[in-house]
């Protein structure tokens, strides 16, 4: 009797135990699983079409909606995406792409080489970096519907990097080719049609953007997620609280401060990482107006470099979570070189240099004074750095007056009309230095436009190096040229480089396969899935 009861119980328990065991093994194998809604945030965007606008606000959702010819992996290598294969001619002047068979736009129309040619023209003419990326592309030929041939007038070593969906999204010609101006095209925001892993289901710019799975995506079995919800949250503190509470699963360009990172990690559910920003590479720097005294004098700039201890800033202001960095290139770039002159922190040396330069200590223990502009954006970084610089330079007799910009427009006006002495500033590298780095050093680019060569640096030797690097197709030779460029930029102290930015992605342990390429959150999320 007793026996049979046990037997009966066992007969019930055994299958349960086996199922449990089986499911345990599947969990440990971490097999990606389809389905689920991923909650994320956005700070708001004015267009969803990355062909006409740069920046993360458009780029993150834009790369989900639009596909590109290639993807770039962790090692800056191009892998097939919309182009299943490609060949490059020996002279590096002809690139021939073969499109994936049967790929369709979200409205069911096939993607053809005509769309590729149209997209290239659009980006070249409308994207802020269109010319920097593609001015050497003379024509895109379309011998048949699935072959696009790029003909170049001079080699573009970073061409494949610029073919990520972020920088060269393939947009439908049958939608955008209606003659309307692309920058203001109504379909940039309404009824947006791309061919990426997700399509737009709801676009309420004040409240949220909902993207749903593209069932006809050209990669079989992807994407895993059913839905992405971008809630529009502008306040960074509110965002941090939402992450802490678990209302957000994944967010790139999270805008959190280094001090918030520890707090979020303490929840035990959240991972904070600065990986995945190598391709955009944000660099902070102190920009000095090189046209006027005292900053036209290299000795003065050297004195400043000796007085400002960047590793101290990295440690104290950014909680040791960022690289101090050494020059114009982000440490995540393939072209980064640390072989540059270093200016050890030494106040006495700084003072001696100032004496030499003809700025002795005068009345009130003062050598000279200047106004340092603090931009309204990225205040969490610029504010404390400005205050640190003020106190350090105070120690060697330079009086720094901090001028907080009330808003973006005011600051841009001052800098782009060269009406400033010094400002905290920073800019993106972008995957190829031609796009994001050259603009600050080129003599031709001294323009009344923000993030050009506003500081007024011009040296024919530097121009020659830049021109050479722009067309050099041999990777090692190109690396050597960029090493020289970095050395020269630091030698001339075109800028005084600050630590690299704390740009971070935050995600919960529910998220599997968070985007890990050098484009990070700006790459398509078709491999991302939600665990049980």
């Amino acid at each position, binding site marked *: 009797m007793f026996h049979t009861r046990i037997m009966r119980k066992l007969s019930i328990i055994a299958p349960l135990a086996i199922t449990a065991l089986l499911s345990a093994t599947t969990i440990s194998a971490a097999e990606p699983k389809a389905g689920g809604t991923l*909650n994320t945030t956005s700070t708001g965007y004015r267009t969803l079409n990355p062909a006409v606008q740069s*920046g993360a606000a458009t780029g993150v959702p834009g790369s989900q909606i639009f596909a590109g010819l290639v993807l770039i992996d962790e090692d800056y290598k191009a892998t097939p995406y919309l182009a299943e294969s490609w060949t490059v001619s020996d002279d590096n002047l002809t690139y021939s792409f073969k499109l994936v068979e049967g790929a369709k736009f979200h409205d069911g129309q096939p993607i053809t080489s005509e769309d590729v040619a149209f997209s290239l023209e659009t980006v070249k003419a409308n994207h802020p*970096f269109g010319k920097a990326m593609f001015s050497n592309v003379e024509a895109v030929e379309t011998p048949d519907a699935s072959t696009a041939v790029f003909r170049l007038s001079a080699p573009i070593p970073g061409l494949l990097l610029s073919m990520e969906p972020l920088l060269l999204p393939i947009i439908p010609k049958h939608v955008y080719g209606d003659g309307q101006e692309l920058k203001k095209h109504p379909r940039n925001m309404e009824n947006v049609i791309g061919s990426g892993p997700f399509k737009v289901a709801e676009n309420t710019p004040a409240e*949220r953007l909902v993207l749903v799975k593209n069932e006809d995506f050209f990669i079989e079995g992807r994407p895993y997620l059913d839905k992405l919800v971008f809630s529009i949250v502008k*306040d960074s503190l509110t965002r941090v609280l939402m992450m802490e509470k678990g*209302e957000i699963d994944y967010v790139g360009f999270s805008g959190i401060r280094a001090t918030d990172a520890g707090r979020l990690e303490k929840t035990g559910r959240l991972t904070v990482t600065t990986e995945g920003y190598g391709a955009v590479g944000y660099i902070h720097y102190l920009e000095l107006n090189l046209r006027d005294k005292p900053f036209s004098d290299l000795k003065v700039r050297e004195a400043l470099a000796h007085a400002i201890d960047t590793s101290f800033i990295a440690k104290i202001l950014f909680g040791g979570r960022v690289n101090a960095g050494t020059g114009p290139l982000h440490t995540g770039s393939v072209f980064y070189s640390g072989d540059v002159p270093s200016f050890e922190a030494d106040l006495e040396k700084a003072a001696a240099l100032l004496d030499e330069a003809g700025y002795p200590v005068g009345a009130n223990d003062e050598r000279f004074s200047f106004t340092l502009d603090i931009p309204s954006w990225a205040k969490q970084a610029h504010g404390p750095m400005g205050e640190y610089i003020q106190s350090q330079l105070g120690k060697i007799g330079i009086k720094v007056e901090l001028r907080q910009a009330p808003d973006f427009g005011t600051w841009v006006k001052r800098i782009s009309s060269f009406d400033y002495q010094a400002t905290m500033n920073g800019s993106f590298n972008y995957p190829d230095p031609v796009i994001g780095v050259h603009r600050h050093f080129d003599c031709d680019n001294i323009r009344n436009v923000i*993030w050009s060569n506003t500081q007024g640096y011009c040296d024919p030797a530097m121009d020659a190096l830049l021109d050479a690097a722009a067309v050099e197709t041999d990777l090692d030779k190109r690396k050597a040229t960029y090493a020289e460029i970095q050395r020269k930029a630091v030698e001339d102290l075109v800028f005084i480089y600050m630590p690299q930015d704390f740009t971070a992605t935050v995600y919960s342990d529910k998220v599997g396969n968070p985007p890990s390429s050098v484009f990070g959150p700006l790459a398509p999320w078709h491999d991302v899935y939600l665990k049980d």
Partner: protein
Amino acid sequence: MVKSLSKRIGNAVILLLAVLVLNFTLIHIAPGDPVEVLAGEMGGATPELLAELRADFGLDQPFHVQLFTYLGNVLQGNLGYSFYYDKPVTELIFDRIGATLLLVITALLFALFVGTALGIASAQKRNSLLSNVVTLLSLAGFSAPVFWIGIMLILLLSVALPIFPIAGMATADEPEGNFAYILDVVWHLVLPALTLASIYLAFYSRLSRASMLEVLESDYIRTARAKGLSRFLVVYKHALRNAVLPVVTFAGLQFAQVISGAVLVETVFAWPGLGTLAFESILRRDSPTLLGILFFSAVLVLVVNIVVDIAYRIIDPRISAK
């Protein structure tokens, strides 16, 4: 009544025109222009593109030409195109005004009723526990910055005690059905409305308390008491009407302030309303949008004031007799 009303409306139109001219001028005095901000957000641009955009927006015209073009458009009911969104301003405003009105009206009504009730209750027993608590709370509500109250409420009621959501107007995965959706929005509305109401709650409770105390001292109340009327009747029939008059006046005047308070509350709670749009339009120098919102709020405030005028006459018939 009709005559005074038409006079009020006439005044209102002149006032609106002044608001438009003043705002337009102020925005143009601010340094920096929308094209440079746009270029910044794009991550840089060429001078040719900047010039093209300026010509597009009419910013290359002299100031007076821009002003008169704008006024002419507004008179024809056209508030113009947003520089930033490339959309008609009226469309932008109508997309968001619902959320703001829901927030502002809920907060104002809550503050009005609860504030008045608290004030009147505490006026009847001076130095009682209730009276002291109300005084203390209203002092706190009055002096604390509204965004701080918002963040504290989030920390308390959505992080520490996870009762309410932190931000937004609806859950990411919207519940099915209209009724469920309404419940969801109400659930999201509680914290922002409470935050926005806090300042005005404090104000109304103090105002109605003071006003009630004053009325309770007056001769006709003593007469009513002497007649032997019940305490309830004296307070709620005789005193209340007179005591709420200043509260109603202020509610009308404050409507404008509530809208400006909404700017901060909407930012903290990611509420998709006009306040956030106004704030961003200032930063972006998107003058058509900002002017449109200011114009709209001015119209709203004027309408509310006219309504208050009418309400005033209903509460106190002596006013229309004059």
